[in-house]
C-alpha cells in the first residue's frame, strides 16, 4: 500500500521537477547552489536526480552551461537558453491551467 502511494507520488511529481528547475535558472546557477535554492523553496529533490537532470536538460538544449574556473574551485554554471525560456513559459502556463482545473475539482 505505502509502496503504491510512494510510486504514485513520484509519478505525480516527476513533471513538476523539471518546471521547478527551469524556474530557478533565470540566473546562472551551479549544481549545489541550485539544490540549495530548491531546498529553500521547500522543493524536495534527490541530489542524485537533480544533477543528471541538469545534464539531460542541457542535452535537450533547454540549458546552456559554462565552466567558471576563476574561483578556487571550478564550477559548472547552468542557464536557461532562449529555447529554454520559451519552454519554461509554456510549461508554466500549462501548470497554472492544470492546477486551477484540479483545484476547482478537488
Amino acid at each position, binding site marked *: 500500500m505505502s509502496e503504491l502511494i510512494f510510486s504514485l507520488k513520484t509519478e505525480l511529481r516527476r513533471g513538476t521537477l523539471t518546471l521547478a528547475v527551469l524556474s530557478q535558472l533565470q540566473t546562472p546557477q551551479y*549544481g549545489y547552489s541550485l539544490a540549495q535554492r530548491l531546498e529553500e523553496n521547500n522543493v524536495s529533490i534527490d*541530489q*542524485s536526480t537533480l*544533477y*543528471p537532470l541538469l545534464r539531460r536538460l542541457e542535452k535537450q538544449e533547454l540549458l546552456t552551461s559554462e565552466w567558471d574556473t576563476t574561483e578556487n*574551485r*571550478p564550477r*559548472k554554471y547552468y542557464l536557461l537558453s532562449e529555447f529554454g525560456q520559451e519552454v519554461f513559459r509554456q510549461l508554466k502556463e500549462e501548470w497554472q491551467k492544470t492546477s486551477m482545473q484540479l483545484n476547482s475539482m478537488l
Partner: protein
Amino acid sequence: MNLIETYISEVTQRLPEKIRDDIALELRSTIEDMLPNHHTDNDVEKVLMKLGDPVKLASEYNNKPRYLIGPLFYESYINVLIVAAIISVVISSLTLFVNGMITFEGDKSLFTLMAFIGQLCLKMLLTSLNVLFQVFFWVTIVFIVIERAGISNGDLYNKKKAWSPSDLYQLKKVVKKRQIPKAEVFFSLFWTVLWATLLFNASEMFGWYEQTGKGLEGLKLKAPLFNDDVLFSYAPFIVLLILIEVGMAFYKFFIGRWTNLLASLNLIYHFFSVGLLCFMLTDKTLYNVAFTDKFNNTVPNVPTFWLVSTIATVVAVFSIIDIISGFIKANKSNTAIDQWIKNG
C-alpha cells in the same frame, strides 16, 4: 579525500568515455560544495549518502533505456512473434512431412509406413522446436534494433488512417460461433497433406494383402487396388482440389471467421470433391482387374455397385451437412451491431 575519489570513479567508470571527465569534475566540485570547510570522514560519508548509490547515479546520467523492448513496441512484438512462430512451424512441419512421404523408400506396406510416420513426427517435433528458437531469436533481435534505432511509433501510426468509430461498423463483432479455431485450420491442412500423400502412393499401399510368411514382414501386397496410369490421369483434378483446400485453410487462418464468401467456397469445394469422388468410384478402368477378381472371389455376395454407392452417399451426406453449417455460421448475427446494420 580518498573516499570521494573512489565514489567518483565508481560513477564514471559506468559512463561513456567522452563525458567521464566532465562529470567527474562537476561531481567533485559539487561534493566539495556540500562539505563544510573543515570536514571529517564522517561528513564525507553523510554527503555521499545524500548522493546515493553510485550505480544508480551513473544510470541516471546514462539515461539509456533499461529494457530490451519498450511499451511502444511490446504489443507489435508479441503479435509478430506469435504469427511468425505459428506460420514457420506449420510450414516447416508440412514441408518435412511431404518431403518424407515423397522420398520414402522401401516396401510400402501399411505397417512399415506407420513406423516411418512415427519417426517423421519426432523429426517434425525437433525441427519445430529449433524453428521456434530461431524465430524467437531473430524477431527479438529485429525489435531490439527497432527500439534502439529510435523509430518513433508515431511514424508508424501516422501512416495508418486515424481510428474513427465508423471502423466499428466494418468490423462487425466476431461472434463466438462464427469464429474458426486455429486448431481446425491446422488439422485441415494436415488432412490435406495426408490424403494427398496416401492417394499418390496408393498403388503401393492399398490393395490385396496376403500372408506369405510370418509376422508383418510376411505380409505382401499381391494386387494393388488402383491402376497407376488411370489414377495419375486424374492428377490435375486432384491437384486443383488440394489447391482449393490449402487456399481455404489460409483464408480461414487470416480471416478467422465464417463469411458468405467462405461458405460459397466451401460449397464449390464440396461439389467438386464429391463429383470427382463419384466419377472416380464409378470408373471401372481405375480398379486393378487382379484386385477386383480377388475381392469378388473372397466376398462374392457383396455387389460392387452397392459398396460404391454407399461410400458416395455417406460422403455426400457429410458434405451437405458441412455446406449448410458453413452458411449458418456465416449468417449468425447475434450482435446488436449486426442487427443494427441489417435494420439500416
